[in-house]
């Protein structure tokens, strides 16, 4: 069995399971909560919560983000839809720019940039106190240019870094409605990442520019979280994310929503 076939099988299983959920959930949808659509404004902080691996797993882009979010819950009694934007601070340490006249290795830590995205959750099947559904997310990051002095040379030198990337993920979402005032959830998602890290080098009159393609292999993340409905209109959602099989560390996030 070749590699492509091996990769295709889990994907087919995943799609099959999703379709099954859609059909099986058809009747159950009628029994869904009849709650009205609510709008929420959210603040989210993430620490290493968007683990992205590339370069044959030798490095991981750990993103720390501060996001503003607008969320519509129970849209059409099925969907939660949100859009978010904010400050992304990935740390693409370890990327090497070997095509430049003087090879550079980025170890400069976080690079600020604009992170925007959207997320959709669909509840498809309710059994007992469990809700089964799908979740999908797409996000893009555009880094602000940042200059670094190249110290140690006999002439002044500067490196200008500017990464950008996009990430798409989708997976299964299970929520538990059996608790009063809170709702734990578990999400298993597959994710794909692609991006570009541009580096410009200028050392006196020696100049060069290189864009390293950041193309991560697909990976799986497991997110466990808990929505706490503290008081009317205020919801706090802590979550923890792990990346089985990758060298990335654990990521965490905390969101605060206010309904209006």
């Amino acid at each position: 069995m070749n590699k492509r076939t091996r990769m295709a099988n889990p994907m087919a299983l995943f799609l099959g399971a999703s379709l099954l959920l859609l059909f099986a959930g058809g009747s159950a949808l009628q029994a869904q909560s009849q709650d009205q659509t609510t709008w929420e404004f959210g603040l989210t902080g993430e620490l290493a919560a968007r683990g992205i691996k590339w370069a044959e797993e030798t490095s991981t882009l750990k993103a720390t983000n501060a996001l503003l979010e607008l969320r519509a819950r129970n849209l059409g009694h099925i969907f939660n839809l949100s859009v978010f934007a904010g400050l992304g601070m990935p740390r693409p340490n370890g990327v090497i720019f070997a095509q430049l006249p003087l090879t550079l290795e980025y170890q400069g830590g976080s690079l600020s940039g604009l992170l925007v995205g959207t997320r959709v959750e669909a509840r498809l099947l309710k059994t007992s106190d469990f809700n089964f559904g799908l979740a999908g997310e797409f996000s893009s990051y555009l880094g602000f240019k940042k200059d670094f002095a190249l110290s140690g040379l006999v002439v002044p030198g500067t490196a200008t870094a500017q990464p950008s990337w996009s990430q798409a993920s989708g997976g299964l979402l299970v929520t538990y409605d059996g608790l009063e005032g809170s709702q734990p959830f578990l999400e298993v998602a597959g994710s794909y990442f692609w991006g570009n890290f541009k580096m410009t080098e200028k050392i006196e009159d020696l100049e060069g520019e290189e864009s390293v393609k950041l193309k991560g292999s697909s990976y799986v993340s497991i997110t466990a979280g808990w929505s706490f409905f503290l008081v009317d209109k205020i919801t706090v959602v802590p979550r923890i994310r792990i990346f089985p099989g990758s060298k990335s560390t654990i990521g965490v996030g905390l969101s605060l929503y206010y309904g209006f």
Partner: protein
Amino acid sequence: MSLNNHRKISRLWPVAISVLLALVLVITVTQTGAQNKLKDRLAASSQKTSGRLEEALKARLNPAPPTRIKALAQPVGRPSGPKYSSEKILVKFKPDLSTQSTEQILRAYQPQSYRLIPRINVYVVKVGAGTTVEETLAALRQNPDVLYAGPDYKLRLAAQPNDQLFRYQYALYNPGGTLQIPGSPTGKVRADIKVTGAWDFSRGDPNLLIAVLDSGIDYTHPDLASKVISTGRDFINDDDDAMDDHWHGTHVAGIIAAATNNTEGIAGVAWDCRLLPGKIISAEGEGDYSDLIDALIWAADYSSGQAKVGVINMSVGGDEPDQALRAALEYAYNKGIVLVAATGNDGVAGVLYPAAYDEFCLAVSASDYSDEIASFSNSGPQVDVAAPGVWVLSTIPLAITEPGYLPYAFASGTSMATPHVAGFAALLKANKPWLTPADIMKIIKYTPDDIETAGRDDYAGYGRINTERALSPFKIVK
């Protein structure tokens, strides 16, 4: 607030505290795990400490200079002889003239012979019997069809050779402390070109040739036999056998690319590269500009299979500028070749040619085991970088090796500094073949260790070369 709500909230506190604790723990773990492992770049020294060589060296407790090497130790400075050839001149005609016309004009001056150096259309003219170079030049300069007419200046070697033997190639790895070289001076730790670290990233390329335009190369030398691509070209004797009948070229060649990791002899800087010998210096240590010009064109055009010349080493120099020499340098440079030349060994202000042609050539001065500029090293605004050039151990021809001695010797001079830079240029070019000669020259100039006065100066240029800094990834840090 209702009782129900109060209960709800009170139930949440333990959960919230647990979550916060978990967050703190995770943050700590994340930060620790985020530390990037620094790659241990402590490269194992490939410095040669051949057992046989050491035994031979130890045996020479009283290192009387071998008689056949002693002859090499004549002082090399400004020549006392004529500055240019008494027979030959260089002439270039205006480009709109045909070859037939230019040769007709030349014949009017009744030369003994003449030949055209292709590509740059310069004639090497042997002046007629009964006339002098000066008279012929004066006459030619009156001719409106002549673009340039000048003497064929003398080249000389930029070396202060010495026949004493030492244990270490401090130039490649300087351990500091008392060095076992003449006078047993105290060396400064790592006052060297840092090449052992650079070899982690580049060791050269067999298809990248380094042309050594010098006195030839002893291509039968055990440390060079596998490194010389062909017997080269002898411009002195006009044949295809550039065997070294002096010593200088073989010494230079060993510094650049002696066979390395072969359990004997010395290590070369660019030890995966191969050498192309071009003999432009006679057995007496003399040469003419015309031979250097010819050799530059020949080397620039040379190819053998995939192999092409990427670097030309010129540990030679003359006092005068020359348009034809400049044109030949420009020709080679435009073919993507990095040109490296010695500044000269007179200990005065004034860089020799071709090194003084700053736009095409890297001009190399000589430093010592303590990163001091050698007193003999010429200075000037054209000096680009320095490299070790004092008591440098390298190969010498078997023909001048005394029985019982190994074919290696120490020598000093900007001639010995220059091949370190030529090897460095080859390492860079092998590592990044897309770089232009201008890029490589800039990298070499901007990455040295600053010695002498801070910043660029006329003695060390930008400083003593640091190959590791130029070849290893430069870390961008906050």
